[in-house]
């Protein structure tokens, strides 16, 4: 990323300004035109640098109070298949393959959101059946100690 890209990331991560022409407001700060900012944002979306252009919503406030991380032990040759199957479930918000560690054989991770713990356990059982897996742990979160959005390139300011 060049300096200008980084400067745009810094502006965007403050949140889209709540004014009628928000991209114009950003453009004026960066000495660009509104059209240039719009084109750059679209380019970031097309390149996947911006994963989503929308609102990040706190789900606890919406009744999705239970959150479980389910860790799965999957034979290496089946990880991709199992990952794709689990990703297709709407209750699964995150699905990652991660490295194992000594004494920790789990290599596939899913985050499940539900309205109750029971609902999360049921979802985990359905995932297990769908992917043909039996070795897993359901780890419920008992407290949220921190949740923030990353601020990139702040060392430049």
């Amino acid at each position, binding site marked *: 990323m060049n300096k200008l890209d980084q400067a745009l990331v810094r502006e965007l991560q403050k949140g889209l300004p709540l004014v*009628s022409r928000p991209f114009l407001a950003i453009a004026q700060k960066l000495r660009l035109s509104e059209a240039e900012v719009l084109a750059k944002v679209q380019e970031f979306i097309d390149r996947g640098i911006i994963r989503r252009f929308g609102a990040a919503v706190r789900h606890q406030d919406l009744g999705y109070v239970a959150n479980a991380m389910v860790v799965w032990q999957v034979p290496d040759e089946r990880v991709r298949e199992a990952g794709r199957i689990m990703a297709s479930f709407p209750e699964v918000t995150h699905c990652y393959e991660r490295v194992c560690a000594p004494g920790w054989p789990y290599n596939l991770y899913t985050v499940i959101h539900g309205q109750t713990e029971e609902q999360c356990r049921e979802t985990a059982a359905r995932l297990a059946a769908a992917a043909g897996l039996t070795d897993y742990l359901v780890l419920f979160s008992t407290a949220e100690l921190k949740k923030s959005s990353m601020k990139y390139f702040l060392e430049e300011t």
Partner: protein
Amino acid sequence: MLDELDKRLLNLVQTRLPVAPEPYRELARELGIAEEEVIGRLRQLIEKKVIRRLGAIFDSRKVGYKGTLCAFKVPPERIAEVAAEVNRHPGVTHNYLRDHEYNMWFTVLAGSEAGLNKIVEEIKERTGINEYLLLPAVNIFKIRVNFDLA
């Protein structure tokens, strides 16, 4: 509490904000309300912290950042103190307690591999916790945090 219009607005904006000169006017048209009402409601939802961020949600890897998930085994009586040390780092974006002997699960992001190692080393050194897992991702199959509010 959220009313029906808030829910419709949230359903709309959590999926997609228009990349257009007047994005709020476009949302207003879709909802059949005034642009000022869209802006006013969004401002309130941000103030009430229902919306954590409006606009760009970045893919940390494509921005060029490195990250890992960490799980630490923290004695119950030390949780507050260790959490304070862990959470003080801006690169720690999420930290949850979970019901397992590895009880503190947090994610760390940094601009380089070296920067990432430095943060993890500093946390280990300053807390003295020596039972931990470092679990960087090797494949991402899904990241999606939209919820249907209907």
